[in-house]
């Protein structure tokens, strides 16, 4: 493991025109430093519009998250990291949706404010080789009505040309639901579901200024996939998902700014498909301050069995009025600031997300779609 100083000087030297890396000394190595990070985030959904509310509280979810991360090199060929987070959530969620007399759909919210807590912890390890690395991670997530254990492996391999990297990975999770007040509301008392996924991607350095990455992933969820807290909600017991992502990075002027453009296509056999376009500009000032303004556009088609109003008659086998399965679109704008002061890096970020049925794709829309604001602050300590 080489020192941080040598890595910093070498990377600056390699930015000089005509200064090149000595290829035989190009092994994949663990990070040179240990990092301890803390983030506090707040995610707050806007209150439901009064005109769309039938009953219950208009106040929607307000989530506070605390995250702690430690990562460190172990010897010359390994690294280890531990991530933990604690989430507290309060608010109400849509219970059912009905069509009002004038034909508009209205949402009935869960009566009382829900309080939830979620904790999770992930331990990961990575082994570095001459031309790649291999990692494994284990996660346990726990809340009073949900428990999930998952495992993931991933690796990447750089070809002899030093400009092409192939990455791949797979994950599996085993989840257990035990909805609260199951007897009182005739909810399913307990259920299970499993998720498995795999991905492969290729990263190609096009020239000293740009990098192109493209990848596909598939995921399969099976088991109880319905929302136990909705009065009426019945979804197939299997969901197969496909995603294609492409991203392009372009660096400008001595690498002090970079444009990141990402596109993502998603499709599943519920009938949901979506397009996401992400643009962000990373601008570094005096090597220590980075400002990242970003914009995201999202458009989704509704699931085949989505109904704007809850299907109390259970006319079809599957039905759901969950707004996440409806047709909608969204725009979000964000700003992130990173400031490095010696061994400390301070991070501040904010995002405003606005969803709109008129931006959606095909299918019916829901009165329950949300707008939200996310704020985050944190600090990294490097040693």
């Amino acid at each position, binding site marked *: *493991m*080489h*020192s*941080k*100083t*040598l890595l*910093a*000087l*070498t*990377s*600056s*030297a*390699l*930015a*000089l*025109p*005509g*200064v*090149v*890396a*000595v290829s*035989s*000394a190009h092994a994949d190595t663990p990070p040179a430093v240990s990092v301890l990070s803390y983030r506090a985030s707040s995610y707050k959904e806007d209150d439901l519009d009064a005109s769309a509310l039938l009953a219950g509280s208009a106040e929607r979810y307000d989530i506070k998250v605390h995250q702690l991360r430690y990562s460190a090199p172990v010897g010359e060929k390994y690294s280890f990291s531990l991530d933990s987070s604690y989430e507290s959530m309060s608010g109400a969620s849509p219970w059912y949706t009905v069509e009002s007399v004038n034909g508009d759909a209205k949402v009935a919210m869960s009566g009382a404010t829900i309080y939830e807590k979620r904790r999770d912890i992930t331990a990961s390890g990575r082994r570095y080789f001459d031309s790649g690395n291999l990692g494994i991670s284990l996660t346990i997530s726990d809340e009073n009505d949900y428990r999930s254990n998952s495992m993931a492996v991933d690796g990447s391999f750089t070809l002899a040309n030093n400009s092409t990297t192939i990455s791949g990975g797979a994950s599996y999770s085993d989840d257990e639901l035990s909805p609260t007040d199951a007897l009182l509301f005739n909810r399913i008392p307990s259920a299970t579901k499993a998720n498995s996924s795999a991905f492969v991607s290729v990263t190609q350095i096009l020239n000293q200024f740009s990098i192109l990455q493209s990848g596909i992933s598939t995921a399969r969820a099976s088991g109880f996939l319905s929302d136990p807290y909705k009065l009426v909600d019945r979804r197939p017991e299997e969901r197969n998902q496909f995603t294609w992502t492409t991203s392009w990075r372009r660096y400008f*002027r*001595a*690498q*002090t700014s970079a444009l990141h453009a990402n596109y993502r296509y998603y499709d599943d056999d519920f009938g949901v498909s979506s397009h996401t376009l992400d643009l962000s500009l990373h601008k570094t*000032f*005096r*090597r220590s301050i980075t400002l990242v303004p970003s914009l995201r556009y999202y458009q989704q088609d509704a699931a085949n069995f989505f109904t704007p109003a809850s299907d109390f008659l259970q006319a079809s086998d599957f039905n759901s009025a969950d707004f996440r399965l409806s047709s909608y679109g969204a725009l979000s704008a964000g700003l992130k600031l990173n400031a490095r002061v010696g061994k400390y890096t301070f991070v501040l970020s904010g995002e405003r997300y606005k969803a709109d049925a008129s931006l959606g794709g095909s299918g019916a829309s829901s009165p329950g779609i949300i707008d939200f604001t996310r704020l985050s602050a944190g600090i990294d300590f490097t040693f």
Partner: protein
Amino acid sequence: MSDTRTDLTLFDVEFQAMGTRCTISLYADSSDNARSQCEVVIADVARLENKYSRYLSDSFLSEINAVAEVGGALTVDEETAALLDYAESCFVESDGLFDITSGLLRRAWNFQPEGQTELPDADVLAALLERVGWDRLDWESPLLIFDTPGMELDFGGIVKEYAADRAATLLREAGVDHALINLGGDICVTGPQHGGDPWRVAISDPSNPESPLRLVALSQGALASSGSYARCIEIEGVKYGHLLNPRTGHPFIGTAAATVLADQCIVAGSLATIALLKNSEASQFLEQMQLPFLLIDQNRVIFDRLDL
């Protein structure tokens, strides 16, 4: 040039540039061919000298320093921007010891053979120190802003090493895979010697430059040295080397020399210089880099880690 050819001879192509003697050792079938293969390098070294020499009044560096003298801003080209970025990395990684604005301090010291015999006036030094410090200028690539008038930049510890790295790339691009470039002690190779043997580079004893202290084998990468032996002065019985500490404005007591091997000559050179600026912590600093090095510290203790 094919590796299987046996009719090739090792030629030393010599030229004068950047105030020093430069040599390119390479294999060719004739001296003329050896020379012609080096033309691209000789031209590039001359280009960099014309651009970054502080002795040439029409160099781009002189243009920068003309703005620095009165204060103000100017936009620099990509190559200069990358060099300033590199200088900034050196400043950050050395905790402010490696500073391309510190050349100004030489105005208070005379390291010539018949140099000064007294310490400079404290007020003179204090006034100079007010105009020294990378953190006094505002580097916002590609814009270089001098808020404090009277500053001066000097790429002395960077450009010759950079030229050696570029020379290796230019030769390699021309298919010359077995050459050694030596720009006044800043050395880069494009690969081992023809036949596969490493180059043998002599590191001279700094107190007796004519006698080699150690031979080091080099098949790839670079080697650079920094030392305060070449010019030193004695004031009131205390010997000072010519390397100046930008924090105090004073040279270090005693003399030292360091040679570092790295993939890039520019990195080897700045690590050797930072080590000497760290003075009593030089050996500790170089050990942390985990690169081969040879250090003769200010107490004349030799740390030989060349066989790392």
